[in-house]
């Protein structure tokens, strides 16, 4: 009796579980467009394509997925497109924190509130990089030398994550740096290798090749604790060997860039829930782990209230830096 009822229960549970998505939740009925707010080959493009591949491989949806790049205006093109597609659940926008940062500092025609947040799926770390043969061994050495006032810090885009971090370093380290914006982190890395800059704050994936090749090396990572143990990058060192900046007397505890996923505004909660669920399934696959490891990012999954809280905190912090620098748009 007991066995039977248990059996029945499990059968009904299985049936329920099997049917649940079909009868209750929203399902896509036509092809889905993944909008990468970066050009082909950029970090945001890579994540969109990684997610696309995983979904296709595991057949997580029957509908085909196409990735389109809308990289214009530092990604603004993609967000504006998302805003214009209000109510369309077949456009998924992949971006970064510039969804809420950009509207604060330049007159772009969107705000993150025009979009429906789905999740933040990975965190990219920032490190302080110098040229391989530069004399500085620690962040402390670097700051001492930078006190001379003619250090050049490179970064991707203007008034974006890299420049915000540069201004934070100036403040925490009591130095003045000349910030020089380039189009991308890759370009910045090459400029440092050529000795045209003194430092930059690239993400791990943007400079791993140069580190291995011995043209530049990280001084410290802007993270509360050291990065997880992984394969060695150079002959002797790996990411976990890089000290945190706090350890070295540069008091910036944490600075990260989330990879974010959005739907256009005015979609139904059902539709949003479908994509949250889809992204969760993607994250559970070994291919995702592989992608995270290869791109040297930190796995994370923020959604709903947590994601909201993250945005609010980040925005508050940015507003402070931006108002000190006089960047806020009226």
């Amino acid at each position, binding site marked *: 009796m007991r066995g039977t009822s248990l059996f029945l229960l499990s059968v009904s549970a299985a049936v329920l579980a099997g049917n649940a998505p079909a009868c209750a939740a929203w399902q896509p009925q036509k092809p889905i467009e993944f909008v990468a707010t970066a050009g082909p080959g950029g970090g945001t493009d890579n994540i969109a394509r990684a997610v696309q591949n995983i979904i296709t491989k595991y057949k997580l949806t029957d509908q085909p997925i196409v990735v389109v790049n809308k*990289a214009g205006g530092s990604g*603004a*093109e993609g967000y504006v497109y998302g805003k*214009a597609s209000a109510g369309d659940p077949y456009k998924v926008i992949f971006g970064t924190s510039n969804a809420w940062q950009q509207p604060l500092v330049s007159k772009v025609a969107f705000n993150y509130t025009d979009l429906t947040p789905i999740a933040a799926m990975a965190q990219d770390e920032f490190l302080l990089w110098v040229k391989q043969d530069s004399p500085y061994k620690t962040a402390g050495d670097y700051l001492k030398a930078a006190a001379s006032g003619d250090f*050049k810090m490179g970064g991707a885009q203007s008034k974006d994550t890299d420049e915000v971090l540069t201004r934070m370093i100036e403040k925490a380290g009591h130095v003045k740096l000349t910030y*020089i914006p380039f189009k991308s982190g*890759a370009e910045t890395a090459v400029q440092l290798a050529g000795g045209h800059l003194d430092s930059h704050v690239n993400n791990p994936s943007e400079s791993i090749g*140069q580190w291995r090749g011995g043209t530049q090396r990280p001084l410290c990572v802007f993270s509360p604790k050291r990065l997880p143990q992984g394969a060695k990058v150079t002959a002797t060192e790996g990411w976990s060997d890089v000290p945190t900046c706090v350890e070295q007397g540069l008091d910036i505890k944490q600075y990260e860039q989330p990879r974010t996923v959005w739907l256009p505004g005015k979609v139904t909660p059902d539709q949003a829930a479908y994509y949250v669920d889809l992204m969760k399934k993607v994250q559970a696959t070994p291919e995702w782990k592989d992608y995270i490891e290869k791109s040297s990012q930190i796995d994370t999954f923020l959604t709903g209230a947590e994601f909201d809280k993250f945005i609010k905190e980040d925005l508050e912090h940015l507003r402070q830096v931006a108002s000190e620098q006089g960047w806020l748009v009226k």
Partner: protein
Amino acid sequence: MDNLSELFHGFTIAVTVPHLALMVVGVLLGILVGVLPGLGAPNGVSLLLPLTFGMQPVSAIILLSSMYWGALFGGSVTSILFNIPGEPSSVATTFDGYPMARDGRPTTALATAFGSAAFGALIGVILITFLASWVAQVALAFGPPEYFAVYFLAFASFVGMGGAAPIKTVVALAIGFAIAAIGIDTVSGSVRLTMGIDELVKGVNFVVAVMGLFGIGELLVAVEEEFHARAVSSRIDWREVFRAVGRLPRHGVALLRSAAIGCWMGITPGGPTAASFMSYGIARRFSRRGRYFGTGEVEGIISPETADHAAGTSALLPMLSLGIPGSATAAVMMGGLMIWGLNPGPMLFVDQKDFVWGLIASMYVGNIVAVALVLLTVPVFAALMRIPFVIIAPLIVIICVVGAYSVSNSYLDVVMMLGFGIVGYLFKKLFYPLAPLVLAIVIGDKAEDAFRQSMLMSKGSLGIFFANKLVTCLVVAGIALLLLPLVLQLARPFRKTASPDADTPAQEKVII
């Protein structure tokens, strides 16, 4: 000679039946996407990219790079036949390629273009083979002031001469710079010149501008003129393909000069577009028949095509050795490298020898496959010219509209493309030159970024452009090229007085 043995090892990887098959498939797909404007090599490669994830990295890169070669060749086809360049780098090919095709010699124009392109690519690969490490070092020496100096050189070599009145050239340049400024500015991060249209934040795409200026603009002019409206009765002759290729060595100087310019610009990395414009500009100045450029001169096709392919090929080197893509397509391939688990950068040559040398060997073989296939298609493409204007004109409109829309699935782009068509028409009617306008649209914002980055670095002092030997040489060469026509003009009254009027008709036609 180390490199040579590595190369032979590479050939053993590249020359296998499956890899040769991949090359043929890649090249054919490439020609297809190259011929369809708006699709283009970067889009084609990104469409193909997901298919390669299951492959060996070396097979995958052979497939993608073959597609790249095919698309580079294919891009010249529409430039020559319909005056619609599919890629920024084939704009300069339209200047003489299209007039020659209209003149009833499409076979010659296409075969010349393909032959010289193959020569340029070959020189590019040879350079990569033997000077890989040196080239990587040269590229590292380029900071913002050097970049600006290279762009300046490109502008200088193209401006300051030609048939159009200098003031008209300046006006065209200024309009081009203004168009290039639309969108978000890299250096200040602010939004510029969007005129209240939210979508313009993305800036003006090159393909949209060029399809309007050249494709639609030419069409509007043609509608007016009976000469254009008739079909070209071109004789399709297989032998002409080989004759045209056989005539190439006669233009040895132009070939070598253009290949050198192309390699230099590919490495530095000014890119294929700047290279083709610069090569065309310099050829026009130094060629004995320079004054006929723009009317269907053979060297006017050879120069941009050779430089374009030499630069396109050598641009792959900075991508592999430094991780900076020299072109949009190279950027997509670089994304592919990362997905296959390879990190572009200096260590690639040490860690992934099979991959690197397999790729380099495949560049030799792939280009030979590409040129063979593409020469076979010449008569087919040339036959398109026989189609009467009343049929081909609507087709061109459709191609332009679809092409503009497919750039980023945006209706605004179609409207802008048509607007550019009217601009192109007005430019032609008023004898304003289109080339400076296009050049400014393509590299204007890059030149601006480099200039302002330099100013940030030097805290506002122009001395940074004379701070080291490299940048001083580039800037001085640029200034010399700018002043040369002025000096020649001043010198002319003393030297020559005969037949000043004989030039005028040719001069008028030269405005491009």
